[in-house]
């Protein structure tokens, strides 16, 4: 019997079985079961259960301090949105803000004090007790005689006053701020006007024309929701003067493409047309103390004389200036790209001068005056980085807040003493500065602690709001207030330092006693006069449950004298360089630890924005260099070289290498794998604290 079973029979049986099995439910059931199994395995997360609640708070990821509504499940936020009808943000929230609740759980979060051994790229970090770290920092401060500096990345907060008091007590303190872009024009105006006009803001809502020198007005500048609302209302014409076809240039009403690094020349040319065509009012002329000197100096910068360098047809600048002079109100502002370094002080002064010549300062629809917030120290003029002597800082404490703007480590490093300096970072994450520190004392992450948000950076009136913690603070982190208290005790500095809540309650009490302004409540969109609130406790309760205090408007400024402190020196011509690298970035996204991992949707998965290591060049430049799209190359400057991926982009100016100062999403950002931003480290940091243009080469790997 067995002999009759052939190989063919076995094959037939096997084939028949397989076909038969297909008609049985077994394989289909197995497929279904495997699908059900994969849905329930441990790698698919389980969702939280519990009541859904909503909480109002404010974002602390940048100085804009936008209002947010958080939806929470069992007290844990799972969705953030803007607050509808908010008078400043108009219900918007930027991309970073939308995903801000993830920041406390960022893979690069540090939740324990650490020390770094060595300052080289090969250094390693190890955990240390808070007491030992504070003893070592205080010991270093006592043993050295050099400058103690604090770099405050979000100035004007309540803690900023404590920083300044602490430094004053040490008698060798230096208070530094991050290079501020939103306020750079305002700071330059304050410098040129006497007596000082005090705090200033922009009255965009009532202006007719906004001329922006490179500021990313429509891409995360100031309060993003406000800028978008201004653009969408189409009440003001927006003109972007920029060598890059940025997102703001794309969205503006007019883009004027200029040669890189010629912003000062363009501003001088506008000023020269104002003077030449008699657009400066007699009243303004009389207020300028050095008007004769200014008139003779400005003549050498007519659009015809500067056209060869700026690349702008003289008629274009003349038409723009005539439009500027004919509108009721106009604002001219600088800003520069968040990754690309601020303008030098001369450029800032020239741009500020145009506003003064137009009479836009202290006028509705121009640059308006705003009052100090009751209880807060009057604003101070920050020290410009160019005024800090090199190798002068012995101890540098870097505040943990985030300004959103890039700072190359090279800029900080050149101010530190060569051998004995100590850097202390209070950052909640490993970022491009904290990895260079000696001690890292992590502060609570975004939405983990109570903070004040003072005067939205671009607002026309003073404002005050509170960022209410939505997440439980990690017990191993330390508030910057507590760091100051501990250091004061160890250094015998007599300084009364309250808790954060006491500090802020005190400020709220003083705002209430000021009896000015209104309270805008988020839950119902109502406005109440502060005078109607019976006590400071009522104001505190309102602010902690979702509200913002908005001061009364004051626009008019009494007459002041102006000194046009502009240099007659011709700007350096950098045209001879065959290839110029300009850095470009996005506010708050210079480093991977500044953004939620979910922003991979914007960087890694869509390439909507470029990560670190991507450079864009024009097809013409690419053909000269023999480079094809997406080719791996080496970008080299006198400061070093880095591997890059070249993208060919018709929107980039020929001869320019547009280097993305973006996050390295796959980087570990540990000292062994130095952060950051390798391309930022290639930039030339000049003596005036800028890094706008760097001669570069693109070489084959």
């Amino acid at each position: 019997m067995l002999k009759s079973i052939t190989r063919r029979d076995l094959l037939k049986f096997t084939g028949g079985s397989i076909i038969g099995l297909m008609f049985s439910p077994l394989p289909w059931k197995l497929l279904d079961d495997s699908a059900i199994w994969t849905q329930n395995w441990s790698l698919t997360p389980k969702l939280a259960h519990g009541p859904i609640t909503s909480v109002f708070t404010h974002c602390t990821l940048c100085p804009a301090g936008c209002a947010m509504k958080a939806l929470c499940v069992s007290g844990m936020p799972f969705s953030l949105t803007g607050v509808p009808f908010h008078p400043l943000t108009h219900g918007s929230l930027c991309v970073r803000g939308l995903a801000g609740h993830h920041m406390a759980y960022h893979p690069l979060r540090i939740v324990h004090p650490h020390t770094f051994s060595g300052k080289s790229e090969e250094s390693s970090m190890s955990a240390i007790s808070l007491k030992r770290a504070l003893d070592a920092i205080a010991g270093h401060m006592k043993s050295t005689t050099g400058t103690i500096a604090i770099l405050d990345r979000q100035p004007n907060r309540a803690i900023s006053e404590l920083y300044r008091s602490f430094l004053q007590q040490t008698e060798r303190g230096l208070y530094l701020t991050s290079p501020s872009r939103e306020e750079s024009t305002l700071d330059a105006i304050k410098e040129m006007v006497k007596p000082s006009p005090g705090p200033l803001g922009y009255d965009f809502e009532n202006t007719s024309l906004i001329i922006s020198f490179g500021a990313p007005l429509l891409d995360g500048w100031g309060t993003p929701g406000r800028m978008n609302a201004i653009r969408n209302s189409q009440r003001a014409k927006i003109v972007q003067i920029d060598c890059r076809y940025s997102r703001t240039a794309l969205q503006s009403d007019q883009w004027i493409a200029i040669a890189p690094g010629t912003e000062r020349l363009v501003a001088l040319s506008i000023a020269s047309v104002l003077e030449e065509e008699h657009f400066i009012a007699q009243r303004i002329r009389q207020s300028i103390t050095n008007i004769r000197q200014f008139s003779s100096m400005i003549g050498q910068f007519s659009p015809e004389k500067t056209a060869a360098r700026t690349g702008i047809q003289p008629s274009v600048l003349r038409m723009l200036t005539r439009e500027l002079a004919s509108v009721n109100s106009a604002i001219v502002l600088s800003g520069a790209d968040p990754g690309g370094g601020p303008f030098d002080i001369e450029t800032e002064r020239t741009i500020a001068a145009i506003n003064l010549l137009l009479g836009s300062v202290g006028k509705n629809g121009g640059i308006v005056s705003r009052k100090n917030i009751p209880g807060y120290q009057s604003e101070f003029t920050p020290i410009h980085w160019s005024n800090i002597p090199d190798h002068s800082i012995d101890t540098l404490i870097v505040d943990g807040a985030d300004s959103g703007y890039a700072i190359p480590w090279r800029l900080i490093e050149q101010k530190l003493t060569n051998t004995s300096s100590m850097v202390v970072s209070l950052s909640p994450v490993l970022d491009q500065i904290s990895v260079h520190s000696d001690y890292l004392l992590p502060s609570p992450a975004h939405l983990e602690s109570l903070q004040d948000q003072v005067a939205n950076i671009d607002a026309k009136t003073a404002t005050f709001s509170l960022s209410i913690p939505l997440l439980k603070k990690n017990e191993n982190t330390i508030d910057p207030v507590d760091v100051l208290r501990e250091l004061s005790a160890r250094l015998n500095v007599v300084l009364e330092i309250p808790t954060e809540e006491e500090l802020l309650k005190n400020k709220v009490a003083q705002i209430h006693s000021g009896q000015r302004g209104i309270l805008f409540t988020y839950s119902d969109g109502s406005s109440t006069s502060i005078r109607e609130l019976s006590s400071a406790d009522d104001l505190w309760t309102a602010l902690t449950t979702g509200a913002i205090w908005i001061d009364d408007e004051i626009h008019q400024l009494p007459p002041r004298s102006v000194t046009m402190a502009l240099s007659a020196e011709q700007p350096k011509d950098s045209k001879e360089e065959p290839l110029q690298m300009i850095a470009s970035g996005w506010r708050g996204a210079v480093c991977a630890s500044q953004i939620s991992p979910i922003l991979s949707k914007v960087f890694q998965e869509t390439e909507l924005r470029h990560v670190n290591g991507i450079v864009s060049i024009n097809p013409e430049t690419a053909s000269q260099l023999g480079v094809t799209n997406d080719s791996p190359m080496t970008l080299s400057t006198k400061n070093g070289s880095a591997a890059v991926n070249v993208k060919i982009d018709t929107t980039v100016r020929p001869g320019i290498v547009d280097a993305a100062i973006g996050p390295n999403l796959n980087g570990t950002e540990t000292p062994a794998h130095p952060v950051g931003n390798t391309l930022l480290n290639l930039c030339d940091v000049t003596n005036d604290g800028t890094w706008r243009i760097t001669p570069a080469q693109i070489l084959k790997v």
Partner: protein
Amino acid sequence: MDTTVEKKYKFGMVINLDKCNGCGACAVACAIENNVPPAVQKMNKRNGLTWLTISTVSNNEQYPQSETVFVPMFCQQCEKETPCMTVCPQNAVDVDPTTGIVGQVPQRCLGCRYCMTACPYHARYFNWWDPEWTDGMKQQLNPDVAPRMRGVVEKCNFCHSRLHSAKDKAATLGNREINPADYIPACVESCPNKAITFGDLNDTTAPITSLASNSNSFRFLSRLGTEPKVYYHSKKHWVRAMAEKAQTRSRQADGIAEEEFHG
């Protein structure tokens, strides 16, 4: 197969490309709302998981005449001959006759990816990796949307969980119809430029209806006859001309030469 049936709602969108500045808020809000995980290290533009992706399209002129437009691309909610539904062997694609929304049932999906091949808009995404969030972020997932597992296809469903919430709210109030203000997809809500208009295309009084019928509004690949319910709007001629010429995926990324593309 014609899936047109008499329906009460016909939800659609109009995206004003002249207002979009490519900030990516819609893509991030979509991912947070729908529990789409962040990228793993190996992910890139081709294998990423983005229900809503944004392409950058240029007019190919030289600097400074060059212009760029950002095109948000996601499931176009085809009304007729819905290609993905037609090819799905598992009935994992479902068109809701009462809303017109093309839904995806991941529990039924076998991961064969026929639907991805059939979709003319490349608006479907395959889960190549297990979803990964950090421990804290897992607690911050939207409790109304189930995370999907590796090996299934997913796509935009006009934030279906929000539609359910709106229906629940209407039922609680004793209404048969939802309040349009209660159903707004996450991308629409988050757009800082208010570039996306969402609503019922059957409602002749809704702003979306007049916007969709505007002469500057268009649909991508309308010649295929799938009647997408997502419209785009631009006053720029070159942008409108692009709609019939191109799929919005980067041609360079697809390795298609310029001549071949126009060819």
